[in-house]
């Protein structure tokens, strides 16, 4: 087992180098550079642009730029952002943390929704209720997240109009954007937690729904398989209650694959929640990444790629190890 882990860690090196090299190559293939957009300012002299280009090292051929960047990376330095002259890590740390808040919340919500639904569908196989659950779950899978978020926001506004006209209650049930309220700093620790939680509900729900469908189907299939297996029949013969059979004996082995999959969640944790973050102005990775791409602030982009790649590789390793731990049939020696 130990030998396997060491081998895997060694394998990470070429993978990581290859990934960063590819990312750098793609970044260089884009025409123009960070300073290209300044060239259209009516009072900026070309000499000034050229001087800044030299200051930023953008006048060097790209292999030279790559080697320089890799050199500082190996010393733990992700480089400087062109637009703010700040270390990249300082710029991406907060967005990574914020994305984690949203992704963890949506995962909790995903399990909270999908496990009961999967079980519910499995014990009522082919019933109307089962069909309805499947249909709703597939709807969540099919509808694009950013669109769904906007639909929910519209719903909140319509609801406010209705409650105002009906009961004079003119408040939105949930915040429609951002992660905190403008009086966030005046709140105590508990108040801050509640404020963030309140802001998290809508985007977390949107992100969770897209995963519910797949999760529910797999769990349903697993449950159906175990519910018709010999040891469940034995349990039934012993006269155990339906609840105990469903939740204690069938659900436990059924969730094993999901436990093993937790490692794979690590990269998603910092991969951000995608375009939902833009729609609700969540200060996470997606907006940071898109803004950096738009400005061609390539070291910020590469910094995010590096962190994501590392987590992806570590996450895969953890997945494999967990799988071995929970499934006695798997050996890595």
């Amino acid at each position, binding site marked *: 087992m130990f030998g396997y882990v060491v081998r895997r860690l060694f394998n990470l090196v070429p993978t990581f180098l290859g990934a960063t090299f590819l990312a750098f190559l793609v970044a260089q293939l884009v025409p*123009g550079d960070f300073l290209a957009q300044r060239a*259209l300012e*009516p009072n900026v002299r070309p000499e000034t642009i050229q001087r800044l280009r030299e200051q930023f090292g953008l006048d060097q051929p790209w292999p030279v730029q790559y080697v320089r960047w890799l050199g500082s990376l190996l010393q733990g330095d992700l480089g400087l952002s062109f637009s703010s002259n*700040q270390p990249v890590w300082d710029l991406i740390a*907060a967005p990574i943390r914020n994305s984690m808040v949203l992704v963890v919340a949506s995962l909790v919500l995903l399990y909270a929704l999908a496990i009961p639904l999967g079980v519910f569908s499995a014990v009522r196989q082919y019933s109307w209720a089962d069909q309805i659950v499947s249909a709703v779950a597939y709807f969540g899978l099919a509808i694009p997240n950013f669109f769904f978020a906007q639909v929910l926001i519209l719903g909140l*506004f319509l609801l406010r109009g209705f409650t105002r006209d009906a009961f004079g209650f003119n408040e939105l049930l949930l915040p429609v*954007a*951002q992660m905190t309220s403008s009086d966030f700093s005046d709140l105590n620790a508990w108040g801050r937690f509640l404020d963030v939680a309140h802001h998290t509900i809508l985007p977390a729900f949107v992100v969770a729904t897209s995963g519910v469908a797949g999760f529910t189907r797999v769990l349903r299939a697993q449950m159906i398989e175990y519910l018709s297996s010999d040891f469940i029949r034995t349990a039934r013969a012993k006269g155990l209650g339906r609840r105990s059979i469903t939740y204690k004996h069938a659900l436990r082995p059924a969730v094993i694959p999901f436990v093993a999959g937790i490692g794979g969640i690590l990269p998603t944790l910092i991969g951000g929640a995608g375009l939902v973050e833009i729609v609700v102005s969540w200060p996470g990775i997606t907006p940071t990444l898109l803004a950096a791409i738009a400005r*061609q602030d390539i070291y910020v982009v590469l910094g995010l790629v590096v962190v994501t790649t590392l987590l992806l590789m570590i996450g895969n390793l953890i997945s494999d190890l967990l799988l071995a731990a929970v499934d006695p049939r798997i050996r890595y020696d």
Partner: protein
Amino acid sequence: MHRMSSFLLALVALATLAWASAQPLTWPAAWTSAEPGEAQYGGTFRVSALSDPRTFNPFVSAEENDIVDAADATTLLQQGPDSDAFVPNMAESFEIADDGLSVTMTLREGLRWSDGEPIDTDDFLFAYEAQTDEDVGSNAYDGWFIEGELIEMTAVDARTVRFDFPKEDRLALVVAGYLSPAPDHVLGAIYREGGAEALKEAWGTETDVSETVWATAFVPVEFLPGQRIVFERNPYFGEWNVDEQGNALPYLDRYVVEIVESVDAALNLYLAGEIDAFSPSNLDQVGVVSQAIRNGDIDAELLPNVAPVASSQFIVFNWNKASEPAKEALFRDVRFRRAMSHLVDREAITELVYGGSAAPMWSDVYQAYAYWVNPDVPKYRYDPERALELLAEVGFTPNDDGVLVNDAGEELAFTLATNAGNDQREQIAQIFADEARAAGVQIDVQAIDFNLLVDQLLTTGDDRPFDAILIGLQGGNRIWPWGSNVLPCDGNLHMYNQSGACLTDAERDAERLYGEGRRTLDTEAARQIGYAIQARMAALQPQIFTVSPLAHFSWASDVAGEHPADLIDTVVGVRQLPLTFKR
């Protein structure tokens, strides 16, 4: 008796001098729509911004440093919302020498930083030094040079600074007048200690903003990246800024900038009552806001179609195509370019692209600078008939299929590129191409990457890799609205002709007039020169201007102190922050 009186006079003069020298800046009542005495203290004004400040450092700005602007920058002089003339701001008086080669400014007494330290000439001198240091790489660097020669700045004494210009220049006053001080006791110390590198590393976004020092009406006290910046009243600002009743400014306690990732998110926040002002970027959003006001969702004011934005959109033809002499000759032919302008249906563009919310543009000055726009330039309005006549003069007549061909049977065809992802420009290009096709001109519209487009546009020499490009410019000022790179034939934004030399009399005239206008300190006289430039350029049509979209503004009804309605436009905005208050 005589001696006595002169002694008295001297005393009076001294007293007057002392009183005058401690004069705070009185903000004119004409700048606000509020009644005298109506303003109240307290409250928070919340707005949104589309991106984080990328630094709090006034010198590190490869882009605009919007954070300082957000809290209303404090500069030596200013241009009020009611006039383009320079009026005192941090300087209580300024004097331009008779030869126009120097300007002397006297600072107000009682100027202080937000940490209570006095602001004196050292702070302005340090700002000048840092901005003119190549290694700092400040955005303001280029402005300090007039045709390659540096504007010199010296401190006459603790309250007087002098700028010496290598040449008479209208823009020199812009650069000098818009100089903001930088805290010499904080950033200056860092600069002297560690040079340009240390200065550039100071005050990044990870800095605790409450430790930064400002002269502005509001100072940042908290910054949550990607979320908001909270500003609070600068207690020292009111010592030298008062309203006409003598009340210290600003009125508001707090000013909050909520960071949003998209205009749609800003609109959602506005409809939710989480921000107090929103500028709809199109008529759809105007409709949404207007509906919300009618429904009673928000209590707000809405000013649609207020004024054109300060930017231009135009089609430019390439005069340097040595590899295709026929095309080059065509693009250099003024009749061809006028014909093309006759094929630009500005009304259709206004209706289809901007929902009726745009103004046609006929000259090379942004419509927003109304004072400078020459209303009487030649206008080549939409007129396909006239276009065909002109093209016939150039040698292209319709064949049996209605396609324009010359004697050799060659079709009139070219490529028009614009930047992909800019929906409005893509639509404008398409509308123009459709009209042209109906007239028998074959235009191939290509939407390409913005940087690629700029690269093509900025290539120099006799053979450049494009036919025509649809693009826009922004940036400029109300002192002399032409950029230094645009009219001179060797300028890198002299987009149609990058051969390095003028090819037409009109270009030579415009180049000469541009220099003349910059040397003309009298604004009215400069405007007349500007009119002449526009007349020349409009007749030459090197750039075919299309339309200027109109801006819309909206704000919560309990936010007051905005400009009188006739002053609100895209250049001076809706309000001066220090005069804003909550009802």
